[in-house]
């Protein structure tokens, strides 16, 4: 057995032992999900002089109709499953062991365990590359590619492309709410359809240049949008925000914390040293950083000194950006650890829910304890 195999064997053995200990100590009560079954029923009704309409039989609107007369083929039913708390399941089972409203969810439980496996598989890369990481990596590539395809298809291609070219057809199956002005056919949308087909031509072995036309459109519109967006949103607005008063006056506050008022009842305004200093620092900072970015002059003399000050401001900015990046990543790490120790292993109890869950489920599993 080489060193690598031994290391992985030890890691697995420790992991398995910890899970077994957890199973024994918790009585198998962790990493489970429960759902509440919510039956839905809709009936087809028609008020005199109105079109037929589907209504929720449990809604207030349903009270206006005699639903007992509606045959079964004019009713649609299904069941929604909402995630619920284990304690609700335990309480429901304690009240009626034959109830089926609160149920153990195999698929969501399996999902929690699969998520835990994926999380640990990705973490395993911190030691070194390994088959578990590669499996997780392959899954994330496959799932994310398909995920964005599905999102693009249902949220853009169907409503914004086919919904414009064939509105009646799309309205009849996928978007029944497509009515009024938005349901008008617009044949201008044949342009993105044709460009889209040309874009997909890139997959063909020959004629890849055909994809340049849609690519050119994407590049051109991106350039146009970015040009205006950045000039308006960043360039002008940042300059506008920097043009502030360096002699700041604020409302004066009396010793008892109330605003001081003059004879006319207006607030008494006075010089605010700290706000003024703040404005001056911001203006000096912006100007000195811009001097540093300006390479048409050699950074010597007064320009060099201003550029040096700009570097100091930029270093503080980069330090703050670095600090925030690290904080963000650590927050994500904390969320993953919380998932492992709270949602999966039920070891942590930040929201104080696990204790009630465990006690409730133990009572339900071992009635002699009650």
């Amino acid at each position, binding site marked *: 057995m080489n060193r690598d195999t031994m290391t992985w064997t030890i890691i697995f053995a420790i992991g398995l032992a910890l899970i077994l200990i957890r199973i024994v100590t918790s009585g198998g009560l962790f990493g489970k999900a429960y759902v509440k079954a919510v039956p839905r029923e809709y009936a087809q009704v028609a008020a005199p002089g109105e079109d037929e309409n589907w209504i929720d039989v449990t809604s207030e609107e349903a009270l206006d109709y005699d639903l007992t007369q509606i045959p079964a083929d004019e009713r649609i039913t299904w069941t929604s499953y909402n995630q619920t708390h284990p304690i609700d399941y335990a309480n429901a089972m304690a009240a009626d062991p034959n109830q089926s409203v609160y149920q153990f969810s195999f698929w969501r439980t399996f999902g929690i365990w699969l998520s835990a496996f994926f999380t640990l598989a990705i973490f395993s890369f911190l030691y070194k590359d390994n088959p578990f990481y590669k499996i997780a990596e392959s899954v994330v590539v496959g799932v994310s590619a398909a995920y964005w395809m599905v999102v693009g298809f249902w949220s853009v*291609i169907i409503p914004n492309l086919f919904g414009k070219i064939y509105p009646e057809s799309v309205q009849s199956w996928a978007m029944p709410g497509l009515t009024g002005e938005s349901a008008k056919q617009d044949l201008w949308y044949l342009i993105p359809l044709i460009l889209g087909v040309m874009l997909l031509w890139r997959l063909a072995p020959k004629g890849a240049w055909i994809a340049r036309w849609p690519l050119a459109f994407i590049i051109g519109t991106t350039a146009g949008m970015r040009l205006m967006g950045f000039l308006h949103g960043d360039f002008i607005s940042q300059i506008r925000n920097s043009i502030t008063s360096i002699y700041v006056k604020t409302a004066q506050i009396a010793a008892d914390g109330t605003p001081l008022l003059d004879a006319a009842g207006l607030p008494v305004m006075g010089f605010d040293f700290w706000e003024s200093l703040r404005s001056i620092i911001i203006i000096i900072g912006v100007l000195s950083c811009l001097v540093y970015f300006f390479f048409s002059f050699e950074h010597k003399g007064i320009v060099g000194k201003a550029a040096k000050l700009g570097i100091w401001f930029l270093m503080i900015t980069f330090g703050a950006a670095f600090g925030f990046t690290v904080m963000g990543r650590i927050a994500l790490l904390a969320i993953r650890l919380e998932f492992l120790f709270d949602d999966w292993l039920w070891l942590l109890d930040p929201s104080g829910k696990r204790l009630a869950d465990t006690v409730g489920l133990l009572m339900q599993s071992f009635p002699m304890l009650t």
Partner: protein
Amino acid sequence: MKRTVPLIITFLGGVVLIIAYFIPYTQAWGEKAAVFFDVLAAIAFVLGGGNLLKNHLKKVSDRVAGWGYSVICLVAFLVTLTVGLGKIGVNPNTQFSNYAWSGVYDQVGSPFWWLYEYGFKPLTATMFAILAFYVASAAFRAFRAKNFEAILLLGTAFIILLGRTYAGVVLTGFIPDDSAFSGLKLENFTVYIMQVFNTAGNRAIMIGIALGVASTSLKVLLGVDRSYLGSGGD
């Protein structure tokens, strides 16, 4: 044909969006061009999926090293695509209950939601989470307080990290809130750095970025920069 037409399309696409900004009459043209862009971006996802399928099928067919991972990738891709496009397990929209396809594709409880919730989300979140270790490790190796600029960078990062945690609050907790030195409390000092020094630096950076984007966009629109067309004839 192969190079001139794309240049004209690029110019027209960009100019329509620019004039739409200044001339109210042409605003609708700009909005339409933006929707065309969204549609093409969505079709680009299809292109990406097709490319993934093509490359991984080739790897499997050629039995290259690690082809088993390509099989896993393809299975994950095809399963997600099937349940997502087919809206499998999705209940109809409650307002249009007789339209089987009217429900949202990512409805809670559906298989597509399940794949997102228990596959996509934990995997991507953990991928980003492990960057915490690599950022810390890289910073440890690269950052050295060898000059004043480096000290400023390190010191600011340290103060920001500390000031946003409970430890920072405890460390300077001895300074009274109403004293003249309350600004030196780490949580207040962090806010001051963010609102003053960081704002100044960021403003200059954003002005620089905006000017850079504007000049690059103009170069692309006017055909000065043609690198996106590639160099080959085909």
